[in-house]
């Protein structure tokens, strides 16, 4: 009983941030956990253990006037675990579909994930397509046959355009473009999407409150 009333309290004097549930999908070892680690802790680990099931992390991010709190589910990429994914994307407002630009198979897998999200996930989910491990091709000449790059930037952009996705190439290793992904997602998320339908009359007041009291200090570097 106590919990219920506490919950109500939380609802009506909501925290001065917008919470966004975000899920990461993509083939094993493309760097999902590494992207999240970079975003959340600005760190990189060469040999990160494979994710089993899913890992949960949170991070705040200030975009202009707004503070967004990401509640991130980083899922396991191996095919065998795919049946768990719906549990995590079911209520997600945003998704990162990640592939490894040096692994063409991971791009095919990314296509499948996009399709599945369009079919199964919430209709207004914001999706970003992310080609990771950009550092591996930084010095390469794109036309060069010996290049490690196996998925061109055009292929990625084309898929994103067709499916209405945001598109980024990133490197979790060098931090290249990582924050931009989350800022990009945040900018596309409508304001306070969860609260509006329930308590429309409270909107103004709460936003004043939030900008007044929210220390954006622990947000990301964006």
């Amino acid at each position: 009983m106590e919990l219920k009333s506490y919950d109500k309290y939380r609802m009506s004097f909501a925290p001065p941030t917008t919470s966004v549930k975000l899920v990461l999908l993509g083939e094993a070892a493309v760097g999902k956990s590494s992207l999240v680690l970079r975003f959340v802790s600005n760190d990189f680990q060469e040999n990160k253990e494979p994710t089993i099931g899913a890992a949960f992390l949170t991070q705040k991010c200030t975009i202009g006037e707004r503070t967004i709190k990401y509640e991130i589910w980083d899922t396991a990429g191996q095919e065998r675990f795919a049946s768990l994914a719906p549990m995590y994307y079911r209520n997600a407002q945003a998704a990162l579909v990640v592939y490894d630009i040096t692994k063409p198979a991971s791009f095919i897998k990314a296509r499948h994930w996009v399709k599945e999200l369009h079919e199964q996930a919430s209709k207004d989910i914001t999706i970003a397509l992310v080609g990771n491990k950009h550092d591996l091709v930084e010095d390469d000449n794109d036309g060069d046959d010996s290049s490690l790059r196996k998925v061109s930037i055009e292929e990625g952009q084309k898929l994103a355009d067709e499916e209405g996705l945001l598109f980024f190439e990133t490197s979790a290793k060098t931090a290249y473009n990582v924050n931009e992904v989350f800022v990009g997602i945040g900018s596309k998320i409508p304001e306070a999407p969860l609260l509006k339908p329930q308590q429309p009359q409270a909107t103004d007041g709460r936003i004043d409150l939030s900008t007044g009291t929210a220390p954006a200090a622990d947000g990301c570097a964006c």
Partner: protein
Amino acid sequence: MGKKKQEMSQVYGSNEFIFGERGGRGKHLSSFLKNLSLTGSSTRSGEAEDDVNRNIYGELSYGPAQSMQRRSSSSVRLSGRSVSGPVGSSYAHMGVPEKNLSLYSNQSIANSNPSLKKSTKLKYKDLDDDWDADLEKVDEAPVAKTTKSFSNSNPRYDNQMPVMVDSLYPDLIPVSQPALPDKDSMDYEDLKMKMEVSRLNQLNSKYMKFHKVLTSDANIDLTELRKLSWNGIPQELRALSWQLLLGYLPTNHSRQQSTLKRKRQEYAEGINTVSNIDLDEDAANANAEASRSELSLPSTTSSNRDKQIYHQIKIDVKRTNPTIKLYGYPATQRSLRKVLFLWAIRHPASGYVQGINDLVTPFYQIFLQNYLWQLQKKRTGEGEELFIPNLLDDNDECEKAILDDPQLARLSADTFDPGRLSSRATLIIEADTYWCLSRLLDNITDNYIHEQPGIIRQVGDLRNLISKIDVELLQHFDSEGIEFLQFSFRWMNCLLMREISIPLIIRMWDTYLSETPLGFNSFHVYVCAAFLIKFSNELKHKEFQEIILFLQNPPTSGWTERDVELMLSEAFIWHSLYKNASAHLR
């Protein structure tokens, strides 16, 4: 005293059922059960209790009314390990540690059970009384007396297996020695010292008991080995014991050599048949090749599937135990790749699933450690009767070099580079690892096939179990929207190896391997329940996010074997109570 004493014996009685060596306190057990059912589902508790009682009494092979009179008789034979209080027996020396464990355990159980907690706290001091009183009773048993005088006249043999005593009582003997002080003089320092002495004695005594079982003439007595191993296997005897418990090494000494020879050969042949994939290659080129062809070819040809599997294994082996030095050596990674790949190819229904890379490591590490141990023993010229057959070879040049290493006595698998081994020794360690891993996975094949039904079932069982043991926690999780899959999927998929350090996991496997059927399947769910309930009080005060964050990084870094053993003994209780009551669980 009257009434108080009576309550006391109830509390103590429940302890003794759980942790004592003598077992069979049916009367007290039922009061223990009553306490338990207070936290369970109220509508069904009576019914469930009856059922649970029936199960337990059924196992004990006698009814509650008989228990008192039977207890003091030395000729009682109870059915198997389950009643002999597995954890208790390892702490029963000198009595002191056992008592300590009982109290501690009762408290930790009480954490999840307010009604028990109260009584435990109040009666803490009085428990000593009852405990001492009980020792006196045991002391009266004729056989114990005989051994007592035996021990007194031969102090050196105090900790050896007392051969003429009923096997249910071995650990009680030191308890009845005069060394046990008056309870008034038993101050804290004294107690601490005695515990340390007892711990060392216990290690020695344990070793002797294993030695006796493992070197017995004809067949090794597996039942006896299980009973001993449940409480933890001495490090040096672990490889041998594990291979026996898994049924890889025959219990009949005369068949051991030929069986091992055949199995190692089979492994070598298996590796040869799959080595059209270059298992040794380390270059990214061949990989890029493989990926390139994935795009243009349909990925249905089997060799392409094999390549994908191998690719995945390669990535994961690099990411396995990255903080332990052993796992960074190329030779280690090469061996793990071979074992995992052969297993995956031979088990197409599951193939390679992430998490299996974790499960292979205890075997590899233990068998490597055993190789080093055998070399150490060989140099000092002892212990050969406990060697795994056909492992050492006098003609092995690499082996000679290690034998001549002045650091030999200090080599440990944690930091040893297996690149120093001959290809012969490497192959043997890989083969033993492969077969033992296979046997383990045979128990949980459903965990790794399509949609992982085994894990889904285990997670459901865990939830049901919590609804019985700690309904408040379950209600809290429900109100916070926590799904069990979200935190316990990994517990099942990796057998808690991501939550608990490898040395402690190895200790847990001693117990898992002593369960029949092996504990990796259903017993593991009870261990997970004990694991979760350990944190129950903290979790009940947390919200969704804090709960998830807590459970995916639980505070186990300071854990010792003691913590794990408490968890195992709690799991043992729940297992005894509920294993046959699954109809009620559902």
